[in-house]
């Protein structure tokens, strides 16, 4: 296929866990004790990123994330971190399967800081009204869509 990257690369981080919530949805509900038993190391998102990038030199951050398992944990951590104010836009692939209403409410709280929301359903239809997007997310048992936040 026709993809090419000319930029330089650097290996940054590798986890030791042998499964992700992409493959096993139950992992979305992992408790800290379970993570500990699986030798998962908890990382501070700021420390992780600042190990490789001098954050004081970064003006703007753009993020792509999914909403399953560890991805949503990192998303939540980024939003709650001091990096928050540098994040200019977020593209999230929403895959809510068996998400509790509490998890959905937390997700909606975390995206509240963005002024513009565009939700694109898998059939291509879009929602731009925040109330409609909230309703879609809260009321669908299984939600699959992209949401673009700026």
């Amino acid at each position, binding site marked *: 296929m026709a993809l090419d990257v000319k930029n330089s690369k650097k290996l940054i981080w590798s986890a030791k866990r042998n499964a992700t919530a992409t493959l096993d949805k139950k992992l979305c509900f992992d408790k800290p004790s379970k993570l500990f038993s699986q030798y998962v190391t908890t990382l501070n998102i700021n420390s992780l990123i600042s190990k490789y990038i001098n954050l004081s030199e970064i003006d703007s951050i753009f993020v792509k994330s999914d909403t*399953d398992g560890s991805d949503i944990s990192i998303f939540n951590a980024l939003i709650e971190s001091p990096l928050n104010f540098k994040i200019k836009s977020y593209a999230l692939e929403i895959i809510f399967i068996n998400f509790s209403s509490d998890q959905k409410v937390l997700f909606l709280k975390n995206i509240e800081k963005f002024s513009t929301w565009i939700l694109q359903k898998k059939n291509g239809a879009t929602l731009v009204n925040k109330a409609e997007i909230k309703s879609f997310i809260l009321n669908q048992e299984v939600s699959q869509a992209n949401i673009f936040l700026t």
Partner: protein
Amino acid sequence: MGGVIHLVPDRVTRPFINRFGFQDIEVSKFLVDCIQSCEAQNKLLIDIGANQGIQTLQIVNLLGSSPLLDIICIEPHDKFFQMLKKNL
């Protein structure tokens, strides 16, 4: 343009990429628009759940000769991470 992308055999991503040559291109285009319209000098893209690097590759290719930006890809699953390393 050119090069080869390495993909884990699966029922979703690989057949889609083989057929169309891209995946979730709307996400790539949105981020490229945001990156290009931002006047800040030092920009960072974080790809959380980078999988096999498809989204990052698409963004980099769409950016073309735009100013460089730093990119951090995070992928916890070893099988996908190995492909990510090959692809970037």
